């Protein structure tokens, strides 16, 4: 059966990674590239086979599980090394293996001059394998292997240029900040086991409406912990600070890990646990609020940066904010839809920026670019297409996915979320076109010694494919015709949630506990899909996007003197350009005090107080022994004296 091939999907990249890691230096760069990209291709083809196998499943069965072996256990706790295939997994599999393959091919060209070519691809393949494990695991802990595995590979790849201090610092920072999220994730898993007696996804999701009280304490804590985990991996407030620094890694890494796949893991996880989140309205508010706030905050920082990759990094943070916002209002399909389209256009943008950096020999500062569109036409056009997509210009993919998020933010959330979202959309259009205009248009500010050139075919072909996908990706979710939303129908079995059923159980459980159940009747009112409102909102946001583009045009093409006028000496601008000083804030509130406290603990507590006591006790005993030595003087007259004194005291006591 085709589904039995499931376990091969993450295995191919793993094998590729092992071969390249051990023998990469001996077999030469061409072979390394072929093995790396080839293993991804195999993985992609196997995914297609698995998809076919999935379609052949009997009616009514939506999940296929494959247990390879029992990982570990104790008592009644047991966790399998098992995979699961369901619609959500399949979508993610195609994104990871498909986009992953394209980026691998690109990286062969981009990294070609590197001595440690093999090391790069060993890590890169290992990352793909871990990412596949993350999305295919059938339980929380297997997901956690992938979850930490991708974090670990990201650490290796950010610190790929390990001789650069900034790169090492960025890698370590990414790992540690992610660990803060992982800490919460682990606690959530333990809590889940405590309640359900299992950590298997399908069992937990199936039992959740019957074991958890709607809006109860348990489900709220669990989902909040899971969400903290997601903020770490998906770079949301308050744990987003590692992602911009992660741009120290090679550009393909930024494209694959820090744009298309790994950073969306948090979104995937929330959607995977959608049943739990549906039961926790309070968490949902937090999720939606965080997403909206992140979207707008990152967008403002994106407007002020000059490093081309950093602009894209903040843009990624902002776009994931949209996905999280969508999750927070319960529009999981919209979140996944935006995740997919974002993978296309953001990967294309990052690879395009890589092509630019490649073409002008490593320069990343946009102030030293300009006028590049004549030198690198393919890069320019693909970049432009993706930029239009992210800005939300119809009929490109980003337009549909972003609109769906915004529509649900208004319908299922409230006008504040929508307002934040649409403002972020305006800013997105502005900063993305600022980037395009500064890089490709206007006067060339490139160092005259450098001769910009277009990248080789192995790099431009991936750009073209991704731009194509960014153009047509919207097909997945064209909303106009009711019931035709492909992605929505496809994901329906995963996202299906019967609120009435859950509320009934919650009421029952509350009654059993002798507590009064609040009235939840209003939650069950069905919401009508308002076609005209959606069309209106679409038109509106298209206008907003165009406004942003026109503004960017005025500022950076028409009147290039304007930006300086507006920003010079403005404290507000400087605050934003310094990323609101959040890095410095974390440094002074968490990092420095911890290190200082540790020094204090070591020098004062450990060396002086604790060890001092130990040594002190030894010294006191030594001193007492010395005193006792006086009595053993060796002189007979002293002993005679002691005998006399003793005898007299004895007599005194007796009488």
């Amino acid at each position, binding site marked *: 059966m085709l589904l039995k091939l499931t376990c091969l999907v993450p295995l191919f990249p793993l094998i590729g990674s092992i071969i390249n890691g051990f023998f990469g230096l001996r077999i030469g760069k061409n072979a390394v590239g072929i093995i790396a990209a080839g293993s991804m291709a195999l993985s992609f083809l196997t995914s297609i086979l698995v998809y076919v196998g999935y379609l052949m499943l009997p009616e009514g069965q939506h999940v296929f*599980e494959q247990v390879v072996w029992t990982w570990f256990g*104790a008592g*009644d706790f047991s966790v399998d090394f098992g995979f699961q295939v369901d619609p959500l997994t399949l979508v993610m599999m195609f994104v990871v293996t498909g986009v992953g393959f394209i980026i691998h091919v690109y990286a062969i060209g981009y990294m070609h001059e590197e001595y440690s070519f093999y090391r790069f691809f060993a890590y890169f393949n290992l990352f793909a394998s871990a990412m596949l494990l993350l999305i295919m695991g059938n339980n929380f802990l297997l997901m*956690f292997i992938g979850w930490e595995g991708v974090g670990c590979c990201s650490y290796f790849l950010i610190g790929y240029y390990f001789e650069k201090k900034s790169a090492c610092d960025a890698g370590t920072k990414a*790992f540690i900040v992610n*660990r803060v999220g992982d800490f919460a994730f682990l606690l959530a898993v333990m809590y889940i086991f405590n309640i359900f*007696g299992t950590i298997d996804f399908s*069992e937990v999701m199936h039992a959740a409406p019957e074991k958890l009280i709607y809006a109860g304490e348990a489900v709220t804590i669990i989902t909040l912990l899971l969400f903290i985990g997601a903020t770490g991996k998906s770079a949301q407030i308050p744990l987003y600070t590692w992602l911009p620094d992660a741009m120290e890694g090679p550009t393909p890494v930024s494209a694959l890990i820090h744009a298309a796949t790994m950073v969306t893991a948090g979104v995937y996880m929330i959607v995977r646990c959608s049943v739990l989140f549906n039961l926790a309205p309070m968490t949902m508010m937090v999720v939606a609020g965080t997403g909206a706030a992140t979207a707008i905050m990152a967008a403002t920082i994106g407007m002020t940066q000059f490093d081309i990759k950093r602009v894209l990094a903040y843009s990624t943070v902002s776009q994931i904010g949209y996905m999280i916002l969508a999750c927070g209002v319960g529009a999981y399909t919209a979140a996944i839809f935006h995740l997919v389209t974002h993978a296309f256009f953001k990967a294309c943008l990052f690879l395009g920026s890589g092509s630019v950096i490649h073409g002008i020999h490593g320069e990343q500062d946009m102030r030293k670019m300009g006028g590049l569109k004549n030198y690198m036409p393919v890069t320019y056009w693909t970049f432009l297409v993706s930029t239009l997509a992210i800005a939300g210009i119809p009929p490109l993919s980003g337009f549909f996915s972003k609109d769906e998020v915004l529509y649900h933010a208004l319908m299922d959330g409230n006008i504040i979320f929508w307002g934040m979202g649409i403002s972020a959309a305006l800013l997105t259009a502005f900063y993305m076109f600022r980037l395009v205009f500064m890089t490709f248009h206007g006067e060339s500010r490139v160092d005259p010694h450098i001769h910009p050139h277009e990248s080789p075919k192995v790099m431009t072909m991936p750009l073209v494919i991704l731009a194509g996908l960014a153009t047509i990706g919207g097909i997945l979710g064209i909303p106009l015709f009711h019931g035709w939303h492909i992605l929505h129908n496809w994901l329906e079995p995963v996202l299906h949630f019967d609120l009435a059923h859950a509320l009934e159980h919650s009421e029952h459980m509350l009654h059993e506990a002798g507590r009064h159940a609040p009235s939840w009747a209003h939650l069950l009112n069905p919401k009508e899909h308002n076609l005209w409102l959606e069309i209106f909102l679409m038109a509106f946001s298209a206008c907003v996007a165009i406004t942003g583009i026109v503004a960017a045009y005025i500022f950076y093409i028409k009147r290039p003197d304007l930006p300086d006028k507006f920003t010079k000496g403005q404290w507000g601008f400087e605050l934003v350009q310094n990323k609101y000083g959040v890095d410095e804030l974390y440094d002074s509130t968490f990092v420095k005090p911890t290190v200082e406290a*540790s020094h204090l603990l070591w020098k004062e507590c450990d060396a002086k107080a604790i060890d001092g006591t130990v040594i002190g006790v030894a010294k006191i005993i030594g001193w007492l022994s010395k005193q006792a030595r006086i009595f053993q003087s060796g002189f007979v007259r002293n002993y005679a004296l002691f005998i006399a004194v003793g005898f007299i005291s004895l007599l005194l006591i007796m009488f």
Partner: protein
Amino acid sequence: MFLTFITFLPIIGALFLAFFPKENEGAIKQTALAVAAADFLLSLFLWTNFDSSTHKMQFELNTSWIESWGINYHIGLDGISLLLYVMTTFLTLICVIASWDVKKHIREYMMAMLALSTGMLGVFISLDLFIFYVFWEFQLVPMYIIVGVWGGPRRIYAAVKFFIYTAVGSLLMLVAIIWIYFHVKETTGVATADILFITDNISAPLDIQKWLWMAFFLAFAIKVPMFPFHTWLPDAHVEAPTAGSVILAGVLLKMGTYGFLRFNLPFFPQASYDFMPFVAWLSIIGIVYGALVSMVQEDLKKLVAYSSVSHLGFVMLGIFALNEYGIQGALIQNINHGISTGALFLLVGVIYDRRHTRLIKEFGGLSKQMPVYAVCFMIVALSSIGLPGMNGFVGEFLVLLGIFQVNGLWAACATSGVILAACYILWMFQRVMFLELNNPKNMELKDLNVRELITVIPLLVLIFWIGLYPKPFMKTFDASVNHLVSRVSPDNFRPTKDHQEDGGHHASLMTKTELAKLSQRLQKTSHN
């Protein structure tokens, strides 16, 4: 007899070595290696012949030793001691190989190493309190000599501190042992120091139980070492030669945790339950404190030593969760710590041999010069911070899961150690391995040689093996832990009504999930 033979084989080998001419270093080393290797292979034989379905003692031998006092030579292995036993022979072998280049008094060094091995093995097999105490004190001597003769500049200070600190703790334990001996004699009429007999028949009133518990606690807590009895450890580790550190971390510390499982818990279940919060908090403080202090160390060995305090905190926490998850996690974490920290000490030893310094600031950029070394170091470092898929995670997660059942707050505090571990390990790694190679003394460093690879690779294999498929290891102690838990489980001491409700509820929950699992499995198989 077989078990006795394996246990005493090393010390017989050591005596044999004494007759070798001093100059014949090659023969001395080869003989020591042969003895260690034979001992390891024989102990593997124990493992394969071990019946993991029962908690009963196996390979038992019980003969009279000092008849008038009822002291028997009673030895045996159960699930709790088996893996520790095998790990001891395994690490001894690794250490003999790792000590190949010792220049000073190689004959005496190897003799001490082998004698140490017998001492440690004896601790794990003793089933008579007096035999146990003899071995417990005996292994101090070779370790004391190893640190004191082959150690670093402050070796005498460290060796004396190590010896006296541990001995002081053990003395109180001796008092407790004697008390128990007379108590059991009084209540049952049998003069015996047999551990199994005492476990079944000890019936001291609670307040006395608590005093006895504390006497044992002190001895074992110093050995583990738990905060705040840990200050001998950094000194001993820093001064000990590489192999000494490996054994110290890998086995000696485990004797403390083993003691808790063999004595404190089964002898005094009620006292253990009452002291649970106390031990849990000490462990949590140890986890966080060890990690924080580790972070700011300048000496690599000291850093690893303090990280041991943190890791052993996890083990102690797992033991005092008093449930299956926690204790099984603690046992596997015992092994994991032996492997990961042992490997870390080996790797630190490698650069110490080359540079004669362990100060972090002396290094930097080593991965350029020593790529293989860097890869090994990275794997071990990641295992030490508990990356899932590697050994550390399995133990840590089970421990945390176990303690979460008891108290969510404790679990949350302990889990913060996971973040801190990443901080100190990665920061150290960055400063040693990454950045620019700009210290001229490091420019010529050689990568791992074959002998060093032989010592490290088995540990790397184990790191992934336990991380991905720990079943062969964990199933050895499954039955023993079940038995132990049935004895010490807090359910035994809670007020009865509560107990019934709790137990009943839990039972129904278990069967429900088990049913669900079972039916799902059935579905899966039928579907395939």
